[in-house]
């Protein structure tokens, strides 16, 4: 682009725009940075007034997140010296670590249900998207709209019959139930996004393959799938992030066995009320994977969040 182009903003306006945007970005990051910092504070520092920016970092929040502890008498503490650094930390409150907390389990539930439902959504979604993209399907637009419209229902509204259904089928509070449910919610996104990606693959490739004697199935498997790999990967990440973040169904339909991390993290309590450093530690561990994925996915973000309605 020549420097005389009329559409190229001037140096000064670029500088002003940059400053304003960066200011906004920094402000918007404050809550996230605060979560990160609070995770490394002691409970006393976390609730001090005025809020502390400079403090002695400690792993107390993380220790509290992963362990259960009980208070013990001085005699008991004297008789049993601390076993490791984590034990050392809780000793200052006359406590000892008695076992792991539920956080690990809940986090694993998030992983299992997240990946399980993502795999299923992508598997079913790719098949359906391919069919919608390549074949004449009667009432295609209606079906596609129907698939999309299922996203408009408030989760709390669908939760009532799903609760009853799960109760009758014995799926309440099970991993399988949650995987099926999240697949049902995610599949509309998967179909719409993947259809867009597959539409972009020239039909000529498959036609050439068919002429070479491939079956439809082989053409799909050996030609279309590799071409759509990027699209599938980014769709998968969107499905995963949805399942990872979902709260309403999780809080209504699970209680222990299959409870995921989002309903659990806000209820991490310490001695009195909420143990903010432990909550912040849990939040940090839970949010970081999503941040990493977001950065990886930045090129496809727009598509993902608009169901493929807007492509760059």
């Amino acid at each position, binding site marked *: 682009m020549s420097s005389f182009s009329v559409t190229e903003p001037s140096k000064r306006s670029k500088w002003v725009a940059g400053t304003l945007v960066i200011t906004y970005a920094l402000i918007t990051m404050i809550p996230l940075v605060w979560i990160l910092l609070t995770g490394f504070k002691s409970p006393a520092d*976390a609730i001090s007034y*005025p809020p502390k920016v400079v403090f002695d970092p400690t792993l107390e929040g993380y220790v509290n997140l992963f362990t259960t502890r009980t208070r013990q008498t001085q005699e008991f503490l004297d008789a049993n010296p601390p076993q490791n650094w984590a034990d050392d930390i809780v000793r200052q409150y006359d406590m000892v670590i008695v076992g792991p907390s539920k956080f690990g389990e809940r986090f694993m539930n998030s992983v299992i249900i997240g990946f399980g439902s993502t795999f299923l959504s992508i598997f079913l979604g790719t*098949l359906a998207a391919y069919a919608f993209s390549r074949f004449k399907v009667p009432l295609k637009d209606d079906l596609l709209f*129907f698939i999309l419209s299922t996203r408009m229902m*408030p989760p709390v509204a669908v939760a009532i019959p799903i609760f009853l259904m799960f109760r009758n089928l014995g799926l309440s509070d099970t991993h399988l139930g949650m995987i099926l449910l999240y697949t049902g919610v995610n599949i509309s996104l998967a179909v719409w996004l993947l259809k867009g990606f597959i539409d972009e693959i020239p039909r000529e490739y498959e036609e050439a393959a068919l002429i070479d004697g491939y079956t439809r199935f082989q053409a799909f498997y050996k030609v279309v799938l590799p071409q759509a790999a990027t699209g599938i990967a980014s769709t998968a990440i969107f499905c995963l992030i949805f399942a990872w973040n979902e709260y309403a169904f999780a809080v209504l339909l699970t209680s222990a066995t299959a409870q995921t991390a989002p309903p659990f993290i806000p209820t991490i309590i310490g001695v009195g009320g909420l143990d903010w450093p432990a909550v912040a530690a849990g939040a940090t561990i839970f949010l970081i994977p999503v941040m990493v*994925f977001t950065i990886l996915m930045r090129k496809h973000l727009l598509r993902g969040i608009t169901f493929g309605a807007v492509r760059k």
Partner: protein
Amino acid sequence: MSDRTVDRVAKATPVRVARKIRGLSDRAIAWIFISPTIFLLLAINIFPLIWTIQLSFTNFKANRIGREVKDVGFRNYERILTDSDTWLNMQATAHFLFWTIFFQVLIGFTLAWLLNKKFKGNDLWTTIIVLPMMLSPAVVGNFWKFLYQPQIGLFNYIVSWFSGKDPSSFEMLGSVQLAPWAIVIVDTWMWTPFVMLICLAGLRSIPDYIYEAAEVDRASKLRQFFTITIPMVLPFLMLAVLFRGIENFKMFDLVVQLTGGGPGSTTELTSINLKREAFEKWRTGYASAYAIILFVTVFGLASIYVKALNKVKQR
């Protein structure tokens, strides 16, 4: 859908699959590929919806299994629509919807416009700005509760630093006046990037030659902004509003974590009230009617809006 060929294909070994599928028509393949998805959607969405409609005409309570279920006709609907508390919840929802969309459009568009100046590093900053909306609303909402604490919260502290007010003199989540704004602030923080991204796509879709032609016609920058930029971005912006509207009408997790509907019922959005009716009071029939009313409202409003959107697109 369930003709016998299909069944046999499903059971066949891989070698046979290839042979059978070779013999299948495109149409059969299409149905094999689509039907599992449709089946799942029917099971997880449509069947429940029909069941909800049916329950909404009864006095069923999901926690009272032995109790006789009676058909009550439209009584649940009548009760909901004549209950003044329902309208208070609707008002709270409307307030939340209107102001979140207003601020998100205003800030989101401005940011997109600024980012479109293509300053150095704008990609990096876009990614950073986008982060909040990808995070779990329940987990982040819960943490905002901490930021809003009157004495120890960072938000109150920062506000007091700028305004000179005592940080314990105002309660973002506890006061009837401030709580509706507290949830608007968090939602705006979280979802402005969404509107921004869509606006940015709109701005980038405007070809340079249109501006160049306007420049040749000696149209002022301001005029270009109102006659080119705004109309070209409008369909994108309206799409963003549609998405945000539907999402915020369904809003549950963020607000439950922040205020739980309080103080009193000031921030009790419709879906929070619905959750109380359905899963705390266990008035399943009544709650089903409430759910149907909400669903019809969203669907109706969204359809009207989509019509308007299509008109704008055609222009």
